[in-house]
């Protein structure tokens, strides 16, 4: 083997080793433990399907998954509409490239700040004595504060959309800005109006971006327990928040089995999306 052909292997080695150690082995550990037994104190190596049998026969599992999927679909719906509309505005209506990039960065900056703080910042806005209720009561629309705003499913979905929409904006913006101006020009010359162009050119060419954004949002919402716990005021649960209770009670094998099921669900969903979109060619485009 020549020095040249060995090069990519050596270059990729540290990254690959790290990933195997911190991602591959831990997931293998979860799968192993999911077959083990526990008395709530110690773990006993075994090869038992008991944890999975419990998981699949409990009616709670289905309820939790349905609730989590409901949150996921709602968040997907709103973040797609917002992400698409904002990107459409930035790419096709903002003339100066500098302004376009500045506005795009404005949308992405919160990604580099604390999600916990952004979540909690809704409390003084939505609370009983919060900004929104004071305003609504101030102009006389209602006498009693609206209580469904905070610590409710509404607050949970609102927070998800607030936290995760930028995961939709970035890939959609990316797809849209790669649409060749001459394609749109040609369509216009052929007599298409803005609406025809939107439906027949822009939306189809943005599908890859929408799919990429969906991967993130599915993964983030399905993996969340913290937003559900805090923003629903403890009234709603998700797959992971139920799992967190098992972890807190040291029922690790049961939690591991639930974890393996959830990871499998997320990966199946993601690989379905990856079948439609080839991320690597998309990024290299």
């Amino acid at each position: 083997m020549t020095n040249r052909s060995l090069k990519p292997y050596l270059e990729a080695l540290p990254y690959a080793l790290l990933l195997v150690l911190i991602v591959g082995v831990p997931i293998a550990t979860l799968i192993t433990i999911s077959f083990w037994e526990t008395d709530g104190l110690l773990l006993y190596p075994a090869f038992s399907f008991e944890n999975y049998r419990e998981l699949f026969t409990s009616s709670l599992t289905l309820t939790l998954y349905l609730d989590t999927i409901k949150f996921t679909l709602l968040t997907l719906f709103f973040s797609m509409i917002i992400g698409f509309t904002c990107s459409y505005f930035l790419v096709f209506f903002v003339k100066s490239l500098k302004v376009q990039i500045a506005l795009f960065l404005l949308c992405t900056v919160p990604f580099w700040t604390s999600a916990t703080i952004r979540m909690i910042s809704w409390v003084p806005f939505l609370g009983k004595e919060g900004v929104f209720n004071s305003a609504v009561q101030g102009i006389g629309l209602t006498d009693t504060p609206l209580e469904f705003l905070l610590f409710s499913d509404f607050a949970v979905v609102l927070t998800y959309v607030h936290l995760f929409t930028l995961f939709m904006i970035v890939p959609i913006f990316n797809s849209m800005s790669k649409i060749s101006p001459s394609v749109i020009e040609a369509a216009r010359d052929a007599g298409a109006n803005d609406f025809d162009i939107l439906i027949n050119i822009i939306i189809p060419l943005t599908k890859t971006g929408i799919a990429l954004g969906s991967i993130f949002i599915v993964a983030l919402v399905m993996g969340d327990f913290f937003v559900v716990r805090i923003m629903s005021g403890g009234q709603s649960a998700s797959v992971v928040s139920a799992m967190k209770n098992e972890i807190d009670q040291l029922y690790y094998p049961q939690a591991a089995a639930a974890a393996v099921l959830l990871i499998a669900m997320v990966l199946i969903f993601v690989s379905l999306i990856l079948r439609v979109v080839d991320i690597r060619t998309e990024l290299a485009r």
Partner: protein
Amino acid sequence: MKFSNRSLAFYLLAGFFALFVAFLYGPMIIIFVLSFQGESGGLTFPMRGVSTHWFADLFASSRYGDLGGALSRSLILGLASLAITAVTCLFAGLAFRNKFIGSSVIFYLAITSLVVPGILLGLGLGQLFQLVGLRPNWFTSGLASHLSWTLPFGLLIMFAVLNRFDGAWEEAARDAGAKYWETLKFVTIPILFPGLIAVALFGFTLSYDELQRSLLTVGADNTLPIEIANMTQNVTTPALYAIGTFTSAISFTVIGIAFVAISIIQKRRN
């Protein structure tokens, strides 16, 4: 090709975009303001005077746990993640320009790391440490859990950065007799530097704000996001907003430094 600029559609879309930006930043601005509540003020408006009382309270009072220690642990983890992410992702990115056996395995492992629910990966890491007889600690298993979040992002950004990089520069250096490390030091890294700053920005900020992956991996000593998450459940004074303003200020400073550095380099090149 842009659509007509001053049409009705333009104003509707601009209005929508402005609303989204308000939605994105409005609540944050409210807590920044409320964190300067007077001493007798509460969690909502009205402001009862203006003071920095709640900021002083954060670090003076023992009520909030070891915030100073948590902050320094988070900063150290952020810097360690930054360094490891930037270096390994640079080389991995360079490697991915060639086809090599196992490249798609690495790629899909990175995607897996990105989409697996963070707390579950943390559970796996924590249990792995227990099984091999190690005690989970913020700088060992904690750092590993942070890297599982920063490394995939780093690689994806390297793909985008290298996409605009012309390999002919490297070839020219090699033809002129430069060795691998010389080419890297004098050609590749200087050209890629703005992109590497972006990778570093992700490395630091994603680690600094990481919560879910840290919960079951940091052991006895908490990081700042965990302390803050605990505070959201048991602190009912504006001190909660003060820590929010404080940690956001650190994030914004780091983002600012990265943006300024990138724009200075770009300007010099023009």
